[in-house]
């Protein structure tokens, strides 16, 4: 974000990053199958860049491991995210980034549900509806400008 444009929330709360997941002996063992768990999903989305700040979604506490729910057996994932302020205009974009990241990173068998933590955004329902609509997500990604912003959020720290 450059020039004279003012950010909606110029001085947000910054949270500490959690460390890398610790390697255990079973992780290295060929014969043990590791199920996909909450932490693994959280690791996928925590490093997504915020569209406005040079901070990750984890540092802004937009995503928390607590709000990730995965069931490997039933192939379902549910992620709740919390916009930093209730009127955040970036909420849809953040949700879309999370959704796209999961679509690209999870096996096809998973059903992915991304929505706003209840009671944290003014137009919660509208955003949730957009994110749940497959057609609209697909259409959004056809828009090259939107795709560009989403890709920037997902790229491993541009610049």
């Amino acid at each position: 974000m450059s020039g004279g444009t003012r950010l909606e929330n110029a001085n947000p709360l910054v949270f500490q990053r959690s460390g890398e997941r610790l390697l255990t002996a079973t992780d290295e063992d060929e014969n043990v199958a590791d199920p996909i768990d909450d932490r693994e999903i959280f690791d996928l989305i925590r490093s997504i860049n915020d569209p406005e700040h040079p901070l990750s979604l984890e540092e802004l506490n937009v995503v928390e491991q607590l709000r990730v729910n995965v069931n490997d057996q039933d192939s379902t994932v549910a992620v709740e995210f919390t916009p930093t302020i209730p009127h955040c205009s970036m909420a849809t974009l953040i949700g879309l980034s999370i959704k796209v990241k999961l679509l690209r990173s999870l096996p096809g068998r998973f059903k992915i549900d991304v929505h706003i933590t209840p009671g944290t955004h003014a137009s919660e329902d509208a955003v949730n509806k957009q994110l749940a609509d497959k057609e609209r997500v697909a259409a959004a990604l056809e828009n090259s400008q939107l795709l560009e912003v989403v890709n920037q959020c997902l790229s491993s720290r541009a610049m």
Partner: protein
Amino acid sequence: MRVRVKVGVALQAMAADSALLLGLVEEFVTGQQDSKAEETATGVKNGQFTILQLVEALGLSLTSSEPQTRGRGVQLLSQVLQQCYGNLQESEVEVLVTFYENRLKDHYVIMPHVLEGLKALTKCLVLPPGSAVSILKSVFQDAHVQSLMLAQRSCVYCILINLMDSREEELKGLGSDFVFGFVQSMDGERDPRNLLLAFQIARKIITQGYEMGKFTEEFFEVTSCYFPIDFTPPPNDPHGITQEELILSLRAVLTGSQRFAEYLLPLIVEKLDSDVQSAKVDSLQTLAACGSLYGHKELSEFLPGLWSSLRREVFQTASEKVETAGLSAVSALVASLSRSVLSSDSEDVLHVFLDLILKDCLHHLAEPDLKLVWPSAKILQAASNASYRASLKVMSAVMPSLLEQYNTQTQCSQRRTLLEVLQGFVQPSLHGTEHGEDNVLVEFQKPLCSAVFSALAESSAGLQITATRLLTSLGKQSGLLPLSDLELSVHHLTRLVLEEQDAQVSLAVMECCGALAYIYPEAFAMRMVPRLKEAIFSEPMVEGDRPCPSDSNSQQAVRRRCVTALASVSSQPSLVQESVPVLLQILTSAHTGRDSFSSDEVTSVCHSLQRIAEQAGQDPEVGQIFHDIVIPRLLGLAIQAALQGEDSSGRNSLLKDEAVLSAIVPVLSAVCARLHSELASLMASRAVRLFLDGDVSFLPENAFPSNLQLLKAHPDSCYQTRTVCLLMACVCSLPRSVEIPEVDRLLVELEELSFTCLHPFSYTSAAKCFAGLINKRPEGTALDAMLESTTKRLTAEVENQSPMRMQAFTLLLWVAKALLLRYHPLSTSLTDKLFSLLGDSELASHAADGFYLLMSDSPDVLNRGCHANVRIMYRQRFFAENSAKLVQSFNSAVPERKAAYLKALSHMVNNLPKQVQLTELPALLPLLLEALSCPDQGVQLSTLSCLQPVLLDPPAALTTQLDGLVARLLALNSSPSMKVRIASLRCILALSHLPDHLVLPFRAKILQALAVPLDDKKRLVRKEAVLARGEWFLLGNPGR
């Protein structure tokens, strides 16, 4: 008569010359033969014709009514002048200048040649006074520079540069007209090559003090319109001009004079609003460059505007580059304001500026969990580091508030942030102390130390780690850690060593101990080492009869931390003297079996000893301690343990373990490699006498049998012969100048042992020791004879199906390595032997792995640390000489033997420097692709690890093989080994960074194929798949 003949000959010659000259001119002008110019110039240079004659000969062409012909005439003259300007007389130059000045008014087709001629004339040393000014006047008046072609504009700039170099005084006589003429000439220049010249002239105008008068603003306008420079050189640009070059030369112009300040500073403020990141960075760097020249007079008016732009950039940017540039600009401004001399009536602008900064930043420090705390802290630190005066003001505003907040805040994360900010301010700075001024921080020393101590006593790991760093910073500055606080610090650190279980905190504590012990060795020797020793030897608490397992675990952990701490603090001789005896005492107890040390603990003691020896470097005092005390004790204990092993009834000493022996080796070798010559010779003779003759007189506790024969192979016991690794550690790492006594006898014994011993550890160590000695042995008949007999025996043993084949092979391998490293001619026959063994039914796989050993550095012998004779680039040489051979034998090998060749090849390629890999790869690529399909997982893995770095910067040869490569990599995704799957996914990730047009065709296929490993059963594989697939998705898409 004779005289007349001579004159006649001369006349004839002259006539011939002038005919020749006329011919040349004719052929050039009307015959259009360009090569004739060269011939004419040669004629003029060696005195065959004069310039006057040339002008006469040109006569008709120069006065012709056809502009083309006149042009051709002038061209010839100019080309000749370019080569012969050094031979001209002043009078000739004068005439020529006048001629050319007139020609400037001529037809436009002649113009290029006229300028060339003038350029040549301006290089003349004999340019008559006044000509420079008249040339310039004519050029400015008659040549409309920006309507000329590129090359002619460049010519004009060169004329200016030449004249400025040689006729500075005359040009200055022109007054501001010169600057005006230049401004007009360069106004609108667009070519980067010419811009570099123009900026060079502009820079000269500023530095040599040409008068600008009323044209200052025009001059600034005409150069600053290029700022900020945005230039991307075309691909394959032959001129090699970079954006960086242009930026720097323009910056030198813009920041070159204080008189530009009133124009430049508003321009910078304006450009900082730009959306282009490189423009921002350039503006900030330019601002920082102004700092060295500008003073408060230039800056004061613009400070509020500059500050608000700087603040916005540092506060809002997402880019580290912008932030860094912004901070250095702040620093430069503060530094320049601090330097300026104040006049008595003006206010101190430094204080005004710092007040601005403090007003905007200080309150953010009071919100330690919000984002802006960091940028604010960094700005304040940058300002405070800029000068002593600034640091006085900033510190007195920042420190009390930070310290007070730290003391009143209750949340851990906030206190941690505050402490980290504090640490940033306590960084040792460059100024202040060197001028003999008191450290600014002295007045805050008490509260800082108590903040550190309170944080060290907390249970939060983050807080403790930050506190150790802050403590280190305090300790490094004089006056910030007085004795009483130092003692308290050592107390805290000792407590943390003993009690803290968190690995990261422990590591930070060790680092802090190491740094402080180097500065304050006495405090650590007196207060820390004794307490660590006590903790190591205290018996664990016993509950009932046996210690409960978790308790003994933690006792082990405490001991391990104590041992590491002992190594960390031992950087000064006085501390080594205290810590080493404690470590040796542990080894002694481990040997006698007291105090229940585990073999892991004993190895970690050895690592600590090694670390102490390594960090002491060449310190003679430490060397003496190790030589006199450590080595005899280590050898004594190890040999006692080995002898004990003989009678099975004895106690079980830990020092019998192969793992422990292997850990003692690097200690001895680290010490021996650092001994000074006298001690080194003593060491050599002691070690040799001990192992050859059983002379134990230098070992402590004389409890050894008299007929000690450590190098004799015993068929049923390996304990004694294993000690040969200690001999290797002692004699193979000494400096090359040290002569080993009785080396022949020693070599014979070692050879015998390595051929006949049954225990792998013993015969391998003997072979290594043999190789280590051979490698350092001076050339000569003694060495050759020795090698000849050994080689004969080796060949015989390896070729026969003898039971000792493995032993012979091991020795062969090590001797080959020893000779290969020093480029010994015999090495070829030995390595050829190894190549032929790749086809051997029994030894093929060992031989293939042997190439890894040949090409890599061995940790304990034959490396540079051991002073081995290692010639540079031996790997490249070996590879160059043998790769073709290897490929050939691979092609002719039977299919079931091919794996060994591929393995050998991948070992060889893997150990080559990357530069060589890139050049060799094209030839080897087909083979490496073959290796990817080889069923041996080891070969697959080693090939993948060799391919991956190459893919990051791929050679052209790869692009034709991409199809095959992609197919093979994708096939490896279903390998049963997770390591192979991970490595192949990493290669696929690397492929995504290749140029788009090469890899885009594979995008769909790879994205589909990568969906499978997303569901891999191993998490580590999934992680790599996610990374790779993410990158491939971005490929060819906007926003990458």
